[in-house]
């Protein structure tokens, strides 16, 4: 029951809630636990609540690390 996926915030709604898009499915979630969310942000949604906002720079940095390793792999690690 802990599985939760990043969802795209598409529209802010009254009463601290928002519309999100989760792989094509639209859902309404509560923003009561997060601050400063805007449309275009990705949030981690669990049991109907956004728990945190994804930091795009940190995400890019993690992916870059994986990629560097991929390039390194053939010669250094074959």
């Amino acid at each position, binding site marked *: *029951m*802990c*599985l939760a996926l990043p969802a795209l915030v598409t529209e802010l709604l009254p009463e601290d809630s928002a519309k999100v898009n989760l792989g094509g499915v639209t859902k309404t979630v509560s923003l009561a*636990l997060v601050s400063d969310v805007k449309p275009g942000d990705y949030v981690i949604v669990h049991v109907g609540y956004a728990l*945190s906002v994804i930091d795009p720079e*940190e995400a890019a940095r993690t992916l870059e690390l994986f990629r560097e390793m*991929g390039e390194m792999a053939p010669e250094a690690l074959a």
Partner: protein
Amino acid sequence: MKYIDEFRDGELAQSIARAIKAEADPASTYHIMEFCGGHTHAISRYGLEDLLPANVRMIHGPGCPVCVLPIGRIDAAIWLARQPGVILCTYGDMLRVPGSKRLSLLKAKAEGADVRMVYSTMDAIKLAQSNPDRQVVFFAIGFETTTPPTAVAIKQAQALELKNFSVFCNHVLTPSAITQILDSPEVRELGTVKLDAFIGPAHVSTIIGSRPYEYFAEEYQRPVVIAGFEPLDVMQAVRMLVRQINEGRFEVENEFARAVTRDGNEKAKSLVADMFELRRVFEWRGLGMVPYSALRLKEPYAAWDAERRWDVPQDNPGDNKACECGAILRGVKKPIDCKLFGTICTPENPMGSCMVSAEGACAAHWTYGRFRDLEKSE
């Protein structure tokens, strides 16, 4: 899908696997426990164990809230559901968990109790609003991720002056459970496995941050890497842990920086601190009595506490003797070591809690792992 597909790239997973192989010392063994059921699920689903060298082993920990709830609490929820005028609501996974005498909430419902499934605590509040002449009890379970949503619901109930809403609180805390795994008398009975390092929880850490694990890493001298739930996250965490073990370090590192900070979600943390207090001790299935490992509502919120409103039974009938959940949750045994696995016990007809939710070690192995067992034996 953004922030999902990029973290599932199979070729990159292979190259991280090659890096792990190159870095792992063939003369040593590395035993890494993943605490979260979400990681267990990813490891089974993507066959990550097959990518790792033989001396790097994953041990599945107790991190599924459905799996660690003792039978007595399920019986208590069924007892509550049978009280006159009560509607008991909870998350879907809880409905099929067998209590004692193999009775589940679903069976209690078939026998006439009013049990409903909710997706969110907001639905529970709506249920109370639309049934003013009934008592709505929310059977609250889960780790630090589901506690703040429970707190929001109680705040709402307070604001709406709902007199017919209460919470049967079973929220538990992950850092105390990890400590217990390394440090309990039962270790002597059940035996123990060598644990060199931990993959720390993903979504739990979005709330509590990575800081609570610093004490743990220091005190028990075990490295911890907080990791996301996608396969590349898990592989990268393994690599970071192998490196820490090689270098003799025991630090908390954060692979999931895209969603987790050192301090976590302050808003959620302060809401929980305001409303809940520690129970002196709480029973975990498989781990026994764990001190200061669970929460209950504070006195000012007593009106919303189902355990104060009803005299909820506190018995504990103990597990089905044949079910190995207890040993599996400690990483001492594997699902296939259980005689009931796949014969009497399947996800359609679970005997123990590890078979119920997709994150349980038995269910994950049933869904994704058993065909690999077959291939290996052929």
